[in-house]
């Protein structure tokens, strides 16, 4: 039996009231902070599905994303390194389509089935750029999801699948384009979405000999918050009882990770034996038949999506959102220049930067970051072992509220942070409400963008208030 052994998700803490875009828009969408992108959200979702036992067994990482910060350069290697997967993995980027989440899932399944990986990890993430005030901007939200696929202790088995490829200019973003484009809405909804997702679902039901009533939960990609109910109904599902809530009014359409996030949300009330239909969309559709096993009750993170959606902060206004997305350039003149990140230098020191390893001195036990060759406490040379700090809790030792440095992060909480169990770093506190900042407060770590020069985004680990209490 092959299927899901672990599940994770990420929804950024920030919400934009869509009424801020245009008065008649309703609902909220999840919006990545100024220091987030598809890679950082992927890291957050990936970390949520991992522990050290799982890490050791993972042999492949499939990263699905339609909005990678890089047009050339793999993201899966960076994500895999940041979440501290072993170096000896098959890392793959699956790009360019919102269908990529299920494509990655199927590829992961095949890897495990073929025996090339004991466990395979799937991460999907998107922060798609939409033109300000467009329908797409109203619809798109940001987020990420992750799965670990294996053949032991399976909580949700993958029973069967059916894929349809459909060539059509439904959504696209050209090489030099800033925003996702589409042909008129009616065209891609009716001829694209309705037709091909319908075709995939019908094909799967026929292939498996199942009827719509046999499905406990239909988890279906929702392009606009409306069409999915009509599609479900036309397939013979009861939208009220069988269709997974598309969370569209809470977070928007998050693209590639969307149906995997919905699957994560569906886990909360799935019972052993329940059959689940998972259907994605993007230049065609994948439909998967899943079934909860007796291990479903042991699955972690069953309520993660609900908790992530409940944990939210409001973006104060539309201009802030536009600045975060770079639609409005408010960079001040004559401030200190952004430094150039030396690729060679970064490559040498990346163990401290990316998987966020500090070190513990094997002579005296002192823990410090970034890694040093000579121990700060006992001066022993080259006597240390790595300590992962990314999953450690921390406390704010002291801080200042900087009003002048950053064009987005105002005030920037420049912080001295002490890790539980030892170690210290200077970083900033992100995703914060300035009123909650005080010395002694509890923090957790989060992978974020630092700056971008010449197309190279530098990332770093920042602190944030504990998100899920």
């Amino acid at each position, binding site marked *: 039996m092959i299927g899901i052994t672990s599940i994770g998700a990420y929804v950024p803490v920030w919400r934009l009231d869509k009424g801020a875009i245009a008065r008649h828009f309703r609902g909220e969408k999840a919006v990545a902070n100024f220091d987030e992108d598809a890679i950082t959200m992927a890291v957050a979702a990936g970390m949520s599905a991992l522990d050290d036992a799982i890490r050791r067994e993972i042999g492949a990482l499939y990263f699905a994303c339609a909005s990678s910060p890089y047009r050339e350069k793999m993201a899966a290697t960076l994500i895999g390194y940041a979440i501290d997967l072993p170096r000896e993995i098959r890392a793959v980027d699956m790009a360019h389509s919102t269908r990529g989440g299920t494509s990655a899932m199927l590829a992961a399944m095949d890897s495990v089935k073929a025996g090339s990986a004991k466990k395979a990890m799937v991460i999907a993430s998107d922060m798609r750029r939409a033109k300000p005030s467009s329908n797409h901007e109203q619809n798109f939200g940001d987020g990420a999801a992750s799965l670990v696929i294996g053949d032991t202790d399976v909580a949700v088995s993958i029973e069967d699948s059916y894929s349809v490829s459909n060539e059509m200019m439904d959504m696209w973003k050209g090489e030099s384009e800033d925003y996702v484009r589409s042909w008129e809405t009616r065209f891609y909804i009716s001829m694209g979405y309705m037709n091909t997702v319908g075709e995939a679902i019908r094909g799967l039901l026929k292939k498996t000999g199942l009827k719509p009533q046999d499905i406990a939960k239909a988890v279906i990609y929702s392009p606009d918050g409306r069409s999915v109910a009509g599609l479900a109904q036309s397939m013979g599902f009861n939208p009220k009882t069988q269709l997974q809530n598309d969370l569209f009014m809470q977070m928007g359409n998050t693209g590639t990770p969307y149906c995997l996030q919905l699957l994560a949300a569906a886990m909360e009330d799935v019972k052993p034996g329940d059959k689940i239909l998972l259907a994605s969309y993007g230049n065609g559709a994948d439909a998967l038949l899943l079934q909860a096993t007796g291990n479903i009750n042991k699955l972690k993170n069953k309520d993660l999506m609900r908790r992530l959606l409940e944990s939210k902060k409001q973006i104060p206004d539309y201009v802030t959102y536009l600045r975060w997305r770079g639609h409005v350039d408010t960079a001040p003149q004559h401030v200190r220049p952004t430094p150039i990140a030396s690729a060679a230098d970064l490559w040498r020191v990346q163990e401290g930067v990316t998987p966020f390893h500090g070190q513990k001195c094997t002579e005296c036990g002192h823990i410090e970051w970034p890694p040093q060759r000579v121990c700060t406490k006992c001066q022993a040379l080259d006597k240390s072992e790595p300590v992962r700090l990314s999953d450690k809790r921390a406390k704010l030792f002291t801080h200042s509220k900087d009003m002048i*440095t950053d064009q987005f992060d105002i005030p920037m909480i420049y912080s001295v942070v002490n890790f539980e169990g030892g170690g210290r770093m200077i*970083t900033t506190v992100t995703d914060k409400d300035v009123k909650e900042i005080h010395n002694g407060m509890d923090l957790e770590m989060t992978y974020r963008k630092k700056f971008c020069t010449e197309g190279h985004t530098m990332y770093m680990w920042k602190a944030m208030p504990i998100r899920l209490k």
Partner: protein
Amino acid sequence: MSGIKDKVAIIGMGCTHFGELFDKGQEDLVIEACYEAFKDAGVAPNDIDAAWLGTVDGGNLGSRLTRILKLQYIPVTRVENLCATGTDAFRNACYAVASGASEMALVCGVEKLKDTGYEGGLGGTLHSKYQARYEILTGPPTMFAVRATKYFETYGLTPEKGKEILAKIAVKNHYNGARSPKAQFQKEITVEQVIKAPIIAAPLGIFDCCGVTDGGAAAIITTPEKAKAMGKDYILVKGLGMANNAAQPVLDDKYDFIHFIENQVASKRAYEQAGITNPREEIDLAVVHDCFTITEMIIMEDLGFSKKGEAWKDYEDGFFSLNGGLPVNTDGGLKCFGHPLGATGLRMIYEIYNQLSGRCGERQLKDPKIGLTHNLAGNPDCYCIAITILGKP
């Protein structure tokens, strides 16, 4: 170990006006500071047998100095130790004179921060690749403000009370700066003005921070025997202390951020050489590195001028004011002079030299005999502290 005490004499000094000197280049500042020093010492440029040039952002090579002054093939060392550069250049020259390697040495510190084109903070050239990968990209106010937050928390000062104490430090230094003709800012300010000023990095507001400034300063040193033979008035070097840390504030999670251990170590070394056992009583004045008001407050405790956690009370009592028990930053400090990195340490020595020589006009103290300068360099992770103690013969 025999120290530096009484082995080196300062016989002449010079200092430019400090400020936004858009109309003066490095060449002008070097000439202005050095020629004042030549005149004060009564020596000619060709009497100098070795020189030290302190500059952080002013270009490489000691020859910058010889090129400007047209010194004839003497050895010149360019010194860089960030904000403590000026004092360290002086220190190196002192050892050369004490060892007999040089009989008449010139020390010059200069910085043209206003040529960098950045508004506020220090120029981008202070960043290294190191900062690109690990450090948060920000300016010094932010890095020092974390100490204020911690100081207030540790010693039970409310944020309001803490701000008020810091404001008193700024007010004191501006009072002195208003009596200092070469200072960048020569205006008195009030506590209310300081508290209401725009915040740079809370809890520090704009009046808690020193300016971004151009300036140059110079000293001519020789042996006391030579000074006497020349018939010159001179001031003696009594102690030189320096300490560079190993990034303990960041790498050691026990480092408390309310003291600079580096200050304590460097001052202890200087006190031992100078024979000072009770600095609060024995030192007549000090010019210290008040890059930010909180820095000055912490320095008072580290140097032994105040008890731990009690400097704020000494400020309330006016102990460090011009007419107090131990006047600190009698010329207005970095608060009023700004901080042209390579020049600052020598500007501090210039003030002590003039106070001990009785040349300070309205801000002149009554017959001071021993003074201290304290120069601090670094971000939270790396510090260099350089201290000099100067005395009358």
